[in-house]
């Protein structure tokens, strides 16, 4: 299933900040359906990689303590307008996604 994603870059405190928003339920596996009393299975993003011009610059390991529709921010040491930015993520059900974007300051 395709998910809505958004990647934005901006200058912040002299660094290039990358903001990543992914529409994802981030279900904990601890909640149960109020009507059926059945447990709602966990469904959350586990890993996310930030790749700049083909070089991995940062990654994140996420758990169920991250909010629904996760918003993640990183600050890159060096990046300029036009640089290729790729975000790859994977969740606990094996679903994954790749977002291709560009640094735009």
């Amino acid at each position, binding site marked *: 299933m395709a998910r809505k994603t958004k990647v934005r870059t901006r200058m912040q405190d002299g*660094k290039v*900040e990358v*903001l990543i928003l992914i529409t994802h339920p981030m279900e*904990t596996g*601890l*909640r*149960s359906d*109020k009507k059926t009393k059945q447990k*709602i299975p966990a469904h959350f993003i*586990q*890993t996310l990689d*930030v790749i*700049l011009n083909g*070089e*991995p*610059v*940062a*990654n*994140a*390991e*996420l*758990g*169920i*303590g*991250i*909010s*629904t529709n*996760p*918003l*993640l*921010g*990183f*600050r*890159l*040491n*060096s990046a300029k307008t036009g640089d290729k930015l790729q975000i790859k993520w994977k969740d606990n059900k094996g679903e994954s996604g790749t977002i291709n974007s560009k640094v735009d300051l």
Partner: protein
Amino acid sequence: MTKMKRRAFLKGSMAGSVLAIAVGAGLLRPTQVMASQWPDKAFKARNLADAVNSLYGSSDVADSKAIKIRAPLQAENGAKVPIQILTDLPAESIAVFVKENAMPLAGRANLRNASGFFSTRIKMGKSSDVVAVIKSKGKLHSTKLAIKVTVGGCGG
């Protein structure tokens, strides 16, 4: 004779399963061998000390003033608490823990060529200390911030 062989076989297979149990219990820490593996055990740890220990393999954490947590002191909605962690230390990784959550570890950012910064939104079941642990030059540093939550964000 055949009986003896059977004994030896059983012994051998038992040694094998002991090894498997050791791996399962995290004693051999396969996560450290394969860095890209999601640290399942750390995320399932039920208290802060266990979570830190499981994630970093050490609980030798020094309080540091070089780390800043930017977050609202009072969060209206515990399901979405915005948080920023900043540090001047050359950080290899930044981990975020919510002390009072059933499973304290929220997430960890591994920084290869990025500055000491990580921001996200976290779930908080109730008012709690939020703890940031940073690995820098092989050492662990941490700081914490108490955040009050009016409506919890972990129940159903």
